[in-house]
């Protein structure tokens, strides 16, 4: 008897009409939400097209020490240092010091206007990341600065080629030796705050090998259709220095790798990101390998790398001579990130497992990515750094 009323309600047309209206309203609101979400972009906008900037091309001679400095004709550039260290107790530590430059105005931009001399006008955006990792923890700090690339203007951030100095605020990477190649003897220092912890480091880097040019004499191709960058490294640093965490100072030593890269377009507009390895093997060899996801023909991945002998001879590794297979994933910062890889170079009899010491190495910066120290086991052993972007 009671249900008749309910049944009548359920079959009543008016009720369904009202429900229908409400559902439609909800849908409209939902769609509104959706349309506000922008389509996914390539990592940090590095896949955007550029016409006005210079293009990285092969058959270009790199000259040092000039090319240690900034190249404002190219849109993006970085000075990228990673170090695998250990303290007096043998505990492994990882260090990162990076200075990014992004041009805000193209080279032929005339809109500087009347106040081109004002120290505040900017046509470059500088970004610096400093990170320190112990087996259990990870600290990072990020800073930004406006700037001009002109080396004679001592701004908040900048790079000078000779004598080499790169800085943002009081984070520095500078040459200790005024003569000789600019990057042979460096000191790197940074201090940062992460949540309530303070961390810092001051390290002396001494090169025990020559500069290494990747790819075709320094032109490193990144996609199948010819996009690329100018890319050279100094992977042979021996490191001595001190690390400070919340006031506690530790003496450390180890190895470091400095990457220098600049380009105007590293990826195609639809590519998501890359995975990049830099490994110090125990027999003295160094290995650089990267996988541009979606950069190959028909949207396949584009692989490349450099096999570096202890004397500094470089063997350029083409697409088909490298195998990079992610074998294990971890859930980091709500994303699925491969933290264990199988790396094979059949031509060099290399078959190793590269594994992150600790998956929690997410760089929670404005453009976030994963960067952390790794161990190498297998046919060869060693340590290194792994960077994964676009996840």
């Amino acid at each position, binding site marked *: 008897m009671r249900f008749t009323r309910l049944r009548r309600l359920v079959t009543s047309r008016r009720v369904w009409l009202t429900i229908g209206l409400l559902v439609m309203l909800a849908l409209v609101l939902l769609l509104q939400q959706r349309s506000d979400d922008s389509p996914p972009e390539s990592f940090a906008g590095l896949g955007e097209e550029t016409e006005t900037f210079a293009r990285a091309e092969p058959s270009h001679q790199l000259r040092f020490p000039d090319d240690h400095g900034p190249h404002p004709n190219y849109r993006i550039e970085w000075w990228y240092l990673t170090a695998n260290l250990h303290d007096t107790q043998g505990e492994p530590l990882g260090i990162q010091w990076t200075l990014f430059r992004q041009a805000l105005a193209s080279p032929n931009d005339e809109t500087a206007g009347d106040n081109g001399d004002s120290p*505040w006008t900017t046509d470059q955006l500088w970004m610096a990341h400093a990170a320190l990792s112990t087996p259990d923890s990870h600290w990072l700090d990020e800073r930004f600065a406006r700037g001009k690339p002109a080396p004679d203007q001592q701004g908040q951030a900048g790079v000078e080629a000779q004598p080499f100095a790169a800085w943002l*605020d009081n984070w520095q990477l500078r040459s200790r030796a005024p003569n000789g190649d600019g990057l042979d003897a460096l000191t790197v220092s940074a201090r940062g705050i992460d949540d309530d912890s303070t961390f810092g480091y001051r390290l002396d880097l001494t090169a025990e090998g020559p500069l290494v040019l990747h790819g075709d004499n320094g032109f490193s191709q990144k996609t199948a259709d010819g996009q690329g960058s100018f890319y050279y490294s100094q992977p042979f640093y021996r490191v001595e220095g001190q690390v400070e965490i919340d006031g506690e100072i530790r003496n450390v030593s180890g190895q470091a790798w400095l990457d220098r890269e600049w380009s105007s377009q590293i990826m195609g507009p639809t590519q998501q990101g890359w995975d990049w390895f830099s490994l110090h093997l125990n027999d003295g060899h160094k290995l650089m390998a990267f996988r541009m996801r979606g950069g190959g023909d028909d949207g396949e991945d584009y692989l490349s790398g450099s096999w570096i002998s202890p004397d500094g001879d470089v063997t350029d590794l083409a697409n088909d001579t490298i195998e990079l297979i992610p074998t294990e994933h971890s859930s980091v910062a709500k994303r699925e990130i491969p933290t264990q890889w199988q790396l094979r170079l059949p031509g060099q009899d290399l078959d190793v497992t590269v594994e992150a010491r600790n998956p929690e190495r997410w760089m929670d910066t404005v453009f976030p990515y994963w960067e952390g120290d790794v161990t190498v086991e297998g046919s060869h052993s060693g340590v290194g750094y792994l960077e994964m972007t676009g996840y």
Partner: protein
Amino acid sequence: MSLAAYRTALLTLLSHYRRHPGQLVMLLVGLWVASALWSGVQAINASARDSYARAEALFSQQLDRIERRDGQPLRYEDFLTLRRDGAPVSPMVEGEVELADGTRLPVLGIDPLTLPEGGGLGAAQASETLLRFLRPPYRTRVAPETLATLSAEPGATPTLASGGTMPPLATDRTLPPELAVMDIAAAVVLLEASGPSHLVIAPEATLSLPDEWIRHSADNLTAPGQLTDSFHLNLTAMGLLALVVGLFIVHAALSLTLEQRLGLMRTLRALGLPGRPLVALLATELLILGLVGAMAGIASGVWLAQWLLPDVAASLQALYGERLGDELSLPWYYWAGGLTVTLGGLLTAGASSLWHAARLDILAMGRSQAWHGRFQRQLTGMAVAGGLLWLLAIGLGGWLHQLPPRAGLTLGFTMIAAALLGSALWLPPLLASLLAVLARTLRHRPLAQWAFADVNLQLPRLSVAMMALLIALSANLGVSSMVDGFRLTFLDWLDQRLVADLYLRPPADRYEAVADWLRERDGIDALLPTRDSETRLIDTPMQSTAQPVGLYGVTPHPRLRERWPLLDAISNDPWPAFQQGAVMINEQLALSSALSPGETLTLRTPQGPRAFQVAAVYADYGNPRGEVMLTTERLIERFQAPPGSIGLVLPPGRATDISALRDELSQHFGISRDSLIDQATLKQQSRTIFERTFAITRALNGLTLGVAGIALLTSLLAQAPQRRRQLAPLWAQGVSRRRLTGIGLCQLGGTALITACLAVPLGLALAWSLVAKINVAAFGWRLPLHVFPEHIATTLVLAVAVTLLAALLPAWRLWRLPPGHLLREFDAS
């Protein structure tokens, strides 16, 4: 029962209004008016709160400021040095631009790349927005309200008075109104600044600064929401008052319609409509009426708020420096809140009607109402309830007394509300007993006896309207006493504080030059430089943490010494002690930290904590903070205060050419003519601000009185048929209609007079609690109580006038009634 049957029943219930549309109008008007006044006030409050929230969230409010001690502007190199040392500082440049049409717009230049977290970069989303912000032609980010004020579209480039243009406009919903934010590179050019005006740093960041810099803590800046809280609470109180009075009308209308429909409802029940559906239908009717009335009210509320907003905005800007846009920005909770409050109020007003309907006694059909007994019981209930409310009010008053100043504002208002409602509930019993007494004394005069009995008959209906009138009248009296007393005090105080004849605030870099030049110049008797700064008060009897206080430096010229408004002092002449190094404190500080003359207080100085003796307490109306006063020299010596303003004392009698002075200042130092302000202008400006502030209060007060008048009018109109029935027998017995009308007016006038007599002491009590309790709770300082006999007289006259005005229409109708009608009424009863 089917839906059609319910529809029939509902339509039957509603058909009553077809015959008595006046009652429906009364109901809707009551709802509409109550809702409009409440919503209007809430619209202003909601709009303002939205504005404050944005202002408080503005990054510049939550960060510490770093400036040079000598007040000089900073240079790029200063910023660079600190940054290269690792200090996470960010530059800002502040100023004002004048647009081509004369409006002045504050401008803030920022560097989003170095702002502490949450300030600028994190929300930059696409690098495209950041790119446009950082690169020519730059962007001017403003709140949507500011766009409206400038009558511009996004992308427009407003023209400046100097001829240049501002960067293209872009909307930013998170910004407070009347503020333009742009990149520091653009701002520096626009404001013609030589460098940043100050640096900001996150409060938690530690930094050791060299001596020539000073760091101002962010929490020294009182959040705009805090300052203006009391202002808005005042507005809310007025709105609530209007709402309550309006709801009285609604309650009266509802109980009238219920009573007249009792027969109808009983018939429906007898014909087979169950009890619960009946109550549900009545509730539905209430809901429909409520929605209609609420919509009309909320919409009118917006209109009312628009009307009041310019005055409110001007007051807020003048009193607190807070900028409110000229446009209302109404968040969703304004609409939801208005609807809820109106419907809730309606339900409260109608609850008793619904309850009666639920307990309907079908069998009482045809039997006449035992109204008399019921009303007597109601009177007792009212007296008891009124007594309880008064006890509550007294209890709250005692509790409030124990609280420190600037606390317990809500408590104070609740106390007043309890007292008002308690008195209102006492009115009907008072009227009834007074009438009984009067009836007994005049029982040998038949017409008079009938008149009193007749008033008794009308009492159940009339008393509700009288209660509304009581509340409105006492509120009127209380508030006007407070306002007029405030005005007297304020004007006196202005005369005392404004000692110099002219005032000038030279820019920091030219201060010394200007001061020297003025000293040499003829026609100026004395210079009274003042400076202000801030510091912290350490370890007072009341507080254990360091309390921020303002510092004020004055030059104790004889004219100042004789006029300064001292409230309490260590001796008859505390000035020598003052010149020797003692301090004076303002009333706010004296109350909040329980310091009195003769005691010592400890202040934090750059050289470390230092003790000072308190020589006197002075009145400082309108200052939300505690303040410590020293001589200007001491302030410079101990606290290195930056330059402030200079007061010029002109020789009495001799007319100094002020215009020439302005010209010379403009020529020699580039100081604009308007920068030199004379005392008369200052006083006039202050008075205007004062009047504008209280214009709002007055408007709301007057409206509330109007609402009470409407309550009375509708009540009388609704009763009209019954009245005719009561009067018919007398007319049949030979009393002329003129006499009857006259008696009617006397009845009403007399009742109103009694109400007014109760309203007078209540109003004065209200005035006292406003000046002695509410003001202290809101602002931290007391006002003296002034009683104005003319106000009391006005109250009495107003009461009678409003009542007679309301009675005019029904009386005229009665007068015009053909005698046959009266007879028919008689027959039908």
